[in-house]
């Protein structure tokens, strides 16, 4: 009986994490002007351990990134890979699969071990598949970042750790 309980708990645990995951990221890359440059970006992103596949759209200088099942996605590392290739992120948006999250008035929530602040929205809960755009110096051209900066306030209670700012 004890063994069965442990197995059931394990199944619940893994099903929770495999369901609540960032499934896909779309990224726009600035400064790309040739297919060799685009290939360089792709190769840098492919090196990330949690990345399953990258499809670059050379014409529109965009990429779609798919992830390994159950792997924890590190959004910072994706932006850094673009930067390491010598280019800049124009936008980065991710598809989140939420079970159900009630949002605090501050917009704070936790997802897959990372802390987030949802800004500039009236949403009170997150559920199902939702696309969120990342806001930050690494994720936007300076001109766009400057517009968002006044809204970027981390008022999550008792939370001094790093947060990702996202919007709908």
């Amino acid at each position, binding site marked *: 009986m004890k063994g069965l309980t442990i197995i059931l708990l394990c199944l619940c645990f893994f099903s929770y994490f495999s369901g609540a995951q960032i499934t896909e990221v779309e990224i*726009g890359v*600035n*400064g*790309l*002007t*040739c*297919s*060799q440059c*685009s*290939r*360089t970006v792709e*190769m*840098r992103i492919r*090196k990330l351990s949690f990345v399953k596949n990258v499809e670059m759209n*050379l*014409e529109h*200088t965009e990429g779609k990134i798919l992830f390994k099942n159950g792997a924890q996605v590190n959004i910072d590392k994706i932006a850094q890979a673009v*930067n*390491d*290739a*010598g*280019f*800049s992120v*124009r936008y980065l948006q991710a598809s989140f699969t939420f079970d159900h999250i009630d949002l605090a008035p501050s917009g704070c929530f936790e997802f897959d071990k990372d802390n987030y602040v949802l800004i500039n929205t009236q949403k009170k809960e997150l559920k199902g598949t939702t696309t969120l755009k990342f806001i930050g110096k690494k994720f936007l*051209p300076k001109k766009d970042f400057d517009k968002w900066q006044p809204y970027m306030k981390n008022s999550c209670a008792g939370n001094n750790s790093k947060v990702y700012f996202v919007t709908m």
Partner: protein
Amino acid sequence: MKIYICLILYFFTATSIDAQELYPICEPASNVPKGTLGVRVFDESYKEVSIYRHMFGIKLMYGLTPKLSIYVSACMSNHHSPVLPVGLTTHTHSGNKTIYTTGNITRGVQYPYEFNGDDLYIKYRFVTSDGQNSHFRMAAYGELSYVNEAHDETEPTLLDDNSGFGAGIITTYLIHHFAATFTTGIVLPVAYNGYAPDPYGGADVATKLVYGNAVIYNLSFGYLLYPRHYKNYSQTNWNVYIEFMGKSYGEAKVYQGPQMVSSPILTPLLQAGNYIEIYPGIQCIIKSDLRIDFSIGYPFLGTSYVRFYPVYMFGIQRYFYGK
């Protein structure tokens, strides 16, 4: 000349195509991606009178950070005599006084292939302004060359002819229809100390050749011919380029023993000069990975005395991304 002007105008007015900055000769302000190794092998050749001169080189490039790249090059050529040429200096006697002058250096002499030397080049990008299909970037570079060749012209060329130091600024502007890169910098060569044969059959004479400092000013344009629209990495890219390579350099000073023998300088090879060359080039990039380029150089304004025209430049380059 007309065809060059037409080509330049075409570059400036072409539409709906992204330009290219992977110039066959000049470096753009962009960097080698971080952690990526680039390997380039190249050949520069021309016919000097009846002798074919070649310089074969290899360049290893590595991205230390996204903004800092390091390049190490080495080359071999049949450009130089093992000692300074017999015609470098001559002298006459007037009473008990010896009057030294520079002589006429014979061109088209067969020289053996020798290892020329090596070169360290570091580039740091300090301005980046990227748009979706555009960017404006600026980089500073520093270059250090070690070459021990009996170079017999005043015009300094690092890696090939001279030990020395180089530094400059690279500016690349790329917007939809064309890419342009302007490079300006200095070349500070180190003097060569060696021996020149005595024209009258005496013992070789200890000789110091101090080369002129130089200012370079290069302007490069690039244009993508094919594909018209990118679909995948397997499309072979065809790019065309025009590069204007300019240099102004000072006159040489030649010393034999403690005496300066280079006044007046009779040969243009040791006189101050300036020129601009034009290098139309074509490049194909296979599978977005293997880059092959070919350029031909002609004098545009003035002429260089360290090479003969046309100059053929050929290069193959590939990036290795690692695991």
